[in-house]
């Protein structure tokens, strides 16, 4: 019994990667930051999301099969890179459907503790504490409406992965330019930390000018 409790709190690399992958919106039934962003920013209509409870927070899960499988596949790949310690950053890019102009970038920047990575184990941090940190970020995403420009045109999204250079590009991914915003406004959100991976979040958005269409 004691060993079970202990095992729960010490995060192995595999466990940590699983949590951070969940962080990015993991398989089939649950939603994390990707869906939260897609829902809160209105990239897909409200009606296409269903409510699901996970980690004590009601979360939204898309019912659109195309989006669901797209995100499931890509997070499987992100998970793999994460476990191999090769993933540096994940960015969800929101663009205007009509013009492809980048309107928002949601940055998740990952720091792997390489010392821990070699050894495979780390200091203690409870699941609950990690979940609290994740929840804090989810709340910030929902509250970002206070400063983000309204996206009142149809938008599409893309996910960019920044990896080590020795990573081979898988079949379903392509090499891409970073799709940056010129002169962005930037807001740092909370970070979250599993003591193996540390994830910093940042959202950048276009300055909306009065003479913009």
């Amino acid at each position, binding site marked *: 019994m004691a060993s079970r409790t202990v095992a729960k709190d010490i995060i192995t690399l595999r466990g940590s990667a699983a949590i951070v992958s969940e962080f990015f919106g993991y398989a089939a039934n649950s939603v994390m930051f990707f869906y939260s962003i897609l*829902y*809160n*920013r*209105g990239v897909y209509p*409200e009606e296409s999301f269903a409510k699901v409870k996970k980690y004590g927070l009601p979360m939204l899960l898309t019912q659109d099969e195309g989006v669901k499988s797209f995100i499931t596949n890509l997070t499987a790949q992100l998970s793999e890179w994460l476990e191999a310690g090769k993933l540096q950053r994940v960015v969800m890019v929101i663009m205007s459907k*009509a013009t492809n102009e980048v309107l928002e*970038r949601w*940055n998740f*920047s990952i720091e792997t503790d390489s010392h821990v990575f070699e050894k495979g184990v780390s200091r203690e941090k409870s699941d609950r504490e990690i979940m609290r940190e994740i929840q804090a970020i989810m*709340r*910030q995403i929902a*509250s970002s*409406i*206070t*400063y*983000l*420009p*309204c*996206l*009142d*045109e*149809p938008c599409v999204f893309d996910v960019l992965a920044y990896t080590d250079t020795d990573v081979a590009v898988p079949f379903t991914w392509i090499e891409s330019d*970073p799709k*940056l915003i010129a*002169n*962005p*406004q*930037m*807001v*740092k*959100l909370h970070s979250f930390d599993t003591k193996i991976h540390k994830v*910093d979040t*940042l959202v*950048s*958005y*276009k*300055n*909306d*000018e*009065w*003479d*913009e*269409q």
Partner: protein
Amino acid sequence: MDPETEFLSSKRQTGNEWELFKENVRPLKRGRNVDLLNHALKARTNDQLKKSLLENRRRLIEAIDEYQGDDPLQPWLDCIKWVQEAFPPGGDFSGLVLIYEQCVRAFWHSDHYKDDLRYLKVWLEYAEHCSDAEVIYYFLDANDIGKTHSAYYIAYALHMESKSKMKAANDLLNLGISSNAQPIEKLRDAYKKFLARSMRRPNATEEELKEDDLPVRSFGTVLARGESQRQAIKTFELGRNKLKQDQVHRTPLSIYNDTNMDVTRGHHSKPNTGSNSWHTLGGRAERNKENNAMPAKWTSHKIPQRPVPRIVGAVASAQIEVFVDEECEEKPKVHDEKDRTSSLQLRELDGRNIKKETELLRENPLRNFPSNSLPR
């Protein structure tokens, strides 16, 4: 290094006031600068910061007056933007409505700005703050302002839709498309969404009778319905932008007041507070009183006079009332007469006057316009 990587790797943090005080922040369609927002939120409890905000505003207003270049609209926009950032909750005390009004009035006759999108946007934002913006859209139409832009048709059509004038909304969007307003894709997309919404409407067949009337006064019935529809439309249209809190500012609830009924008879009887006033229909004489009562003088009711509208000359002569906190009040500056070539005046008023003037403008957005400019 790109700015995001640089920011991520730096030790710099973004302040958290925006999240702590998010209930006090009115979302802006064009978004906000978070540093300015945090600063403004901090200023609410910090006199030093408050003083610096007021100083900023003074400078921006002076900049409007002193501007020499060929784009006099720009300093107005700087000022408007700044007021929006510095007063996150918006509201009647921010003076925002006053600035919108003075800005649009300063340039309504100017050919230079007829097709300027920025100028149109000021009008549209002004319209969003009024109880009934129809008179504004009429004005824009009559004066050919903003008609090359999709934003004009979209906003006007949305307004008509909120009043259930579906045919008018339909015609407007079509007109915009056939006029090739820009950007055309946005207009087409808005039209598609409009059609989808009108399919879902319960009374798809009923048509309004008074399509081309001037705004009709309503006493609580039409307005209540229109507001809930506008809420439904805007919530859908603008996604997560929770404009519901904005609705509270925008459209005051009008409350039907029945007490005038007795005045026509010259009575001074108290309004019927009896418990059975709603339970009995009353006799025929009682029911027909509106048709049978003899007209009489309204001796017990006084209607306050409207102030005479100021005449606006060819030169922009705007008066800006500046909100000044009691603790920051200063003696009015003494101006050298020869330096004042423009007629821009600074009047220091307290918050109450700003609120009063804002309320008057909400009800009658064109009240300060010269009568020859108003649509017939």
